[in-house]
């Protein structure tokens, strides 16, 4: 008996489709308000019942109860061919699932994690029992089922990846009835089980996340959730930029020096994020450095200087609290020592001023 991949939730519409899996792996029923839930080691198997509504109800309940232990949802079952692009008897991995509601196609679609899959499936609101119904759906996908759209939708809601393997059982709307009868006798689970085992034979489990979830920067730092998100996205962008590992990037951003600063752990994280931002935005940080130097006389005279948000305009605001005439004199002297034109030329991207600054450095 091959080993079942861990932390999976296998979903079938009918028990008949799951028969081989229940036989092949030692699944045991789980006492849960939703009927048709089984467990085998760290994985679960759910019989959802047929149709979008039933699938949503049962799968929603199971995900609500168990989503922390689920890594991936795998849907297995039969589907009908809507045209010649799918041949009865094939097992196909689904790329994207579309849906049909009471009033026509549902706008949202959900894409499985199988990047090699090339076949789409539409989940119909009712059984496709005549050629007209098949024709209505065929423009959207070559396969039809009754559940996958709900599975994709819930997977998205719970931020879980999903896959779907479909055994093409019939030509929908053409020979649906006869095939349904055949399926009662034969076991569609056998080819599905085989396809499932082949699919997961070569799959390596997801690698560890970029950073440890808890305290990703180690001792001396504290990351809020939003800081952690920023940290991860900046590390990813910097890795793309320089092809370096996280550790090398963090060193470049001065993590060692920041760790020693006598400030709160959250403030250390903030300082590190600012350094990462500077690494990621060399033009902007260079510009800010030059601007800072240019307004230095004002800052030295004790005045607060502010530029427009995102540097989107070419003004600057000078704030000063004047108590005596000495300060007025200081302000006058400082204002004389700096040139607004040069600052505005920088803010307006004048290449000549950038060249001038470069050559003077």
């Amino acid at each position, binding site marked *: 008996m091959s080993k079942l991949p861990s932390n999976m939730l296998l979903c079938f519409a009918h028990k008949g489709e799951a028969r081989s899996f229940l036989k092949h792996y030692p699944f045991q029923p789980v006492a849960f308000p939703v009927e048709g839930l089984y467990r085998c080691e760290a994985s679960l198997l759910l019989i959802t019942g047929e149709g979008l509504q039933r699938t949503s109800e049962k799968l929603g309940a199971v995900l609500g109860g168990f989503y922390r232990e689920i890594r991936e949802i795998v849907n297995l079952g039969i589907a009908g061919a809507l045209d010649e692009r799918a041949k009865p008897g094939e097992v196909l991995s689904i790329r994207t699932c579309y849906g049909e509601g009471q009033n026509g196609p549902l706008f949202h*679609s959900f894409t499985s994690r199988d990047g090699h899959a090339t076949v789409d499936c539409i989940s119909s609101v009712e059984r496709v029992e005549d050629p007209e119904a098949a024709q209505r759906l065929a*423009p959207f996908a070559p396969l039809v089922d009754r559940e996958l759209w709900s599975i994709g939708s819930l997977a998205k809601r719970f931020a879980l990846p999903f896959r779907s393997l479909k055994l093409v059982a019939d030509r929908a709307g053409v020979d649906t009835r006869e095939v349904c009868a055949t399926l009662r006798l034969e076991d569609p689970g056998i080819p599905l089980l085989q396809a499932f085992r082949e699919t997961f034979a070569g799959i390596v489990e997801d690698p560890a996340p970029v950073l440890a979830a808890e305290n990703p920067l180690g001792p001396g730092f504290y990351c809020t959730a939003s800081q952690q998100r920023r940290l991860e996205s900046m590390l990813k962008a910097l890795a793309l930029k320089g092809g370096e590992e996280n550790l090398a990037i963090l060193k470049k951003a001065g993590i060692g020096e920041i760790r020693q600063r006598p400030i709160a752990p959250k403030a250390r994280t903030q300082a590190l994020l600012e350094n990462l931002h500077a690494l990621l935005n060399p033009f902007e940080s260079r*510009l800010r450095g030059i601007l800072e130097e240019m307004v230095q006389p004002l800052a030295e005279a004790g005045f607060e200087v502010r530029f427009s948000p995102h540097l989107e305009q070419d003004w600057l605001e000078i704030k000063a609290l004047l108590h005596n005439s000495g300060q007025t004199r200081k302000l006058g002297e400082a204002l004389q020592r700096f040139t607004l034109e040069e600052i505005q030329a920088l803010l307006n991207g004048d290449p000549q001023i950038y060249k001038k600054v470069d050559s003077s450095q």
Partner: protein
Amino acid sequence: MKFEQVFVETQVRDLPQTVKILKKLPEVPVREIRKIEDVFGRVRKPYLHKRTALNLYIGRKEGHLVKEAPDAYGLLGEPHFYFIHSYNCIYECEYCYLQGYFKSPDLVLFVNHEEIQAEMAAVLRRFPERERVWFHAGEFSDSLALTSLSQEWPLYWPFFEEHPRAWLELRTKAVNVRPLLQLGPLPNVVVTFSLSPEESTLALDRGTPGLGNRLAAMSRLAKAGFTLGVHYDPVVYRDDLESAYRELTGALLAAVPEQQIAYISVGVVRFTHEVFLEFKRNYPESTLLKEEMSASFDNKIRYPRPQRLFMLKTIRDACLELGVSPEKVYLCMEEDHPAAQGGEVARTAEATHR
């Protein structure tokens, strides 16, 4: 290019233009539909499905066929319109705004060209005193990439011949210029190419002809007497921006005499928030993601203003130094800030996507 299916509206099924297109696709299954909107965009088809499961729709464009371009689009002071004869593109430029636009990457060809031209004529009548009224093709597609299949330009040439006040701008990255060479140049038709330095083209313009091929196509058109235009758009920052665009402009001027270049427009890469999300989803490893862009004052993702102005002006200076007349270089500005304009022509960000 291989289509999975062709959807044809019943109302255009027997039009000669439809028959001509279908003749070129003898192997592809054809499905008749009532209206394009019954299928196209009804469900959200992931953008990257264009690589393996592209469909073609043929139908009649309804509603406004010719639309006024946003304010200050193109050369200052002249009326600008764009007409819609197709949706989507076979190429896959990573920054393309179409990836967030239609909810489906499938190609749509509209075949009611006579109606489009009738509307153009009506627009011309609205501006009797104007010497030029511009009509831009390819706001939602590449003007030439599909021309061998869509075969529409022979239908438009007589219109522009008859209406010398109407100016046509085609915009492309394709090198498929044979249909145009067969038609011959017209004084009021400008064929424009989007160009960027070779490395950017290779990194970002997936599936498009390389820079050398684009320049060669431009050269062929120039030799045949066509007037050409250039879009340096989108420009992506690089430390050697000045030398890269100097080199590019040098290569351009070697391929096309300056007198045959009507204009060079320069625009810096930018995204709307929705397109940026879609772009990140589609190209998570894109080199563009390492750029110094962030949400700006209007929530668009772009470089900080000083940087984008620096880029625009650096490229303009490089063009001027190589002998391009100043009035031919215009900068696509997203703002009407007087200091930013410096005498150039402003153009809205939304107006340009390539």
